[in-house]
């Protein structure tokens, strides 16, 4: 019986893999669609904002109308190369199995083209807009030219406009789930689950205890006064404090800081290489400026220019100190 289920499972899986590979150069990876243009990769997203707002499609579009194709570069090289984008009616008759070779056999693409963006360098993100007026099968063609070799890399992605339902896919999915459930039951999964569950409850208690201590940690953090205080590096070897040219540290006003760097026993550290960045960990964003450590003022003091904060709340400044080819980071927490 086990053997039978294993066989059935692998059959289902291979069918799904075949379906996944059949998207041409666009491959689903988890929640994301990835397009491969030679060695270049990008997140591939399709939207129909007028019809379905921020709903993201990977390939098959529910209907005609305005469609936005977006490529978020994973390989940053794409920001430097001209990218060409073309949509043609699928004349290969191969649908989702169409490949680059099949497209090359079509010869002149102009008569089939419904949209063409000539090569253009887009530094941030690549976007094009096409208004589909008819349903049907289409092929998207993306090309990027390598800046040094001049070689052109291409990708093909078949897609349909006016998606005609899921076909046999839900059936396969249901069968796969059933098969896995069967396999799991046959191999004594239920008994394992019961054993695991009692172990997990014991483990969860530990987490709860730690979680209950969290407010205490937070209180300890909040009790720290932001000024006239120093912070220590991970190794404990360095201490840093700061003063601001504007006090208290202002909102929406660009200003400078002086960082005072010492060893753990208070001896000023001269001529280290410092850099400073920062952000709001709770908001997951950085500073609104790029501060620069511009000069050493003597006595362990370093001048940082171009500091600005654009929100109130909890910030963290990260000072990286490099000496003798070794770097250490000191975190300065700051509440505005």
């Amino acid at each position, binding site marked *: 019986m086990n053997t039978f289920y294993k066989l059935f499972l692998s059959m289902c899986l291979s069918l799904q893999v075949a379906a996944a590979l059949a998207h041409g150069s666009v491959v689903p990876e988890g929640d994301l669609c990835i397009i491969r243009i030679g060695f270049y990769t990008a997140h591939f997203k399709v939207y129909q*904002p007028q019809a379905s*707002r*921020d709903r993201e499609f990977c390939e098959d579009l529910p209907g005609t109308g305005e469609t*936005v194709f977006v490529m978020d570069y994973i390989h940053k090289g794409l920001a430097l190369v001209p990218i060409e984008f073309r949509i043609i009616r699928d004349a290969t008759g191969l649908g989702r199995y169409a490949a680059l070779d099949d497209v090359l056999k079509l010869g002149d693409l102009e008569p089939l083209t419904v949209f063409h963006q000539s090569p253009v360098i887009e530094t*941030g993100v690549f976007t094009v807009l096409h208004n589909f007026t008819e349903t049907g099968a289409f092929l998207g063609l993306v090309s990027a030219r390598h800046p040094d070799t001049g070689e052109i890399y291409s990708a093909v992605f078949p897609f349909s406009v006016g998606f005609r339902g899921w076909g046999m896919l839900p059936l396969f999915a249901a069968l796969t789930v059933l098969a896995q459930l069967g396999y799991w039951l046959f191999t004594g999964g239920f008994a394992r689950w019961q054993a695991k569950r009692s172990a997990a409850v014991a483990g969860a208690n530990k987490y709860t205890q730690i979680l209950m201590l969290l407010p205490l940690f937070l209180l300890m953090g909040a009790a720290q006064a932001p000024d006239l205080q120093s912070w220590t590096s991970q190794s404990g070897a360095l201490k840093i404090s700061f003063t601001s040219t504007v006090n208290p540290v202002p*909102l929406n006003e*660009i200003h400078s800081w002086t960082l005072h760097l010492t060893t753990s026993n208070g001896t000023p550290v001269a001529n280290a290489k410092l850099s400073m960045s920062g952000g709001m960990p709770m908001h997951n964003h950085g500073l609104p*400026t790029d501060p620069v450590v511009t000069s050493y003022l003597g006595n362990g003091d370093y001048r940082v*220019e171009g500091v600005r904060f654009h*929100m109130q709340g909890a910030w963290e400044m990260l000072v990286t100190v490099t000496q003798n080819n070794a770097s250490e980071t000191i975190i300065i927490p700051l509440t505005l």
Partner: protein
Amino acid sequence: MSRTGKQGLVLLLLVAAMAGGFMWRQHLAATAQWTASELAILRSLSLHSLPALPAAPSNLIADSVQAARMGQRLFFDKRLSVNGAVACATCHQPEHRFTDGLPTARGVGASARNTPSLVGVAYSPWFYWDGRKDSQWSQALAPLEDPAEHGGNRMRLVRVLTVDAYYREQYAAVFGAIPDFSDLARFPADAGPVPNPAWQTAWDNMREEDRQLVNRVFANLGKTLAAFQRQLLPGAARFDAYVDAVLAKEAAKENIFTSDQRAGLRLFIGKAHCVDCHNGPLFTNNEFHNTGILPPAGSVPDQGRSRALAKLRADPFNCVGVFSDAKPAQCIEFNFMRSGPELLGSMRTPSLRNLGGTAPYMHKGQISTLAAVLAHYNEAPLALIGHNEANPLGLGASELRQLQAFLLTLDAPLATEASWLAPPAAE
């Protein structure tokens, strides 16, 4: 009384008590005392916290009243357009708080973005929705040559200053004598680095020193327009009067806010996180944020700030350029500006002062009502490009209504003297 009658009465009393309790709780929430940290935020949002105008080191005449009066006349002057029908005031209408009420601007042609208000804009380090200009004077030059806005060229524009006696006199008083552009062989009727091939060719054929002569007068024209726009400042609104009353502990005057407006303010500085970006007395941090605004029909998502950086660095009229009056070290914002993927699809936070009178909203006027704006932030959809920095708020319908009630307390006539808000009287 019958048994069922008694039961009914008890039930009724119970319901009444619950309803009463709920309303009392609502009332308490609306009238609850502000905490010390909330009071600090209220004070920071009040117009009393607005500092003096920031220095404009790239524009030496920024605070000259004479230059501002000249800029005022230019602001309303339709001769500064290719068809004689468009002035700055065509889109920046004083009676609409210097906006036009349209989704996207209409000058000589159709512009790509929404007309922002000019009130209090002098406080921003960046101009335009995407911040592609770093000074008010440099910003003022671009619409004049934009084919969709004034549609002009700088040669024709600076000539207006030489042929009009008032401008010629004022220019001489502010900057020194204006150059002589009467030699049409050296200074053709139309020339400028613009998308019009004939004008571009004429510009390319001019001598370098003549082009710089024209550029200098063109930059000075922008500097007078900037001096005028620095005068446009917001006036105290109902919100400011409420904060005054709260800070002065004048309980009677606190009634100028309804309980809905008070509750909305509490949401604004708390649960709704509006104050994260709309902070300070102008209700803006003048920074760049992606908040997942959908593109309007017919356009791809706007890349915003991330596309502006290269333009800003290449702009001959930026803070570090030869037409700027600043030393390079004074261009602090320019020197330390950030780049990076966080800026993808981001736009500058607009001020919320005069929000009620400046619909439609967003960089392309995508959202026509305040209620729809609040619904957008409540939902916080995924951004089509980059990442939406905002998170879904989970506010109920009554909370959204309260927020809106509060936001409408930010409208007020300008603090600017009326003589600045209309075309100057003829000389």
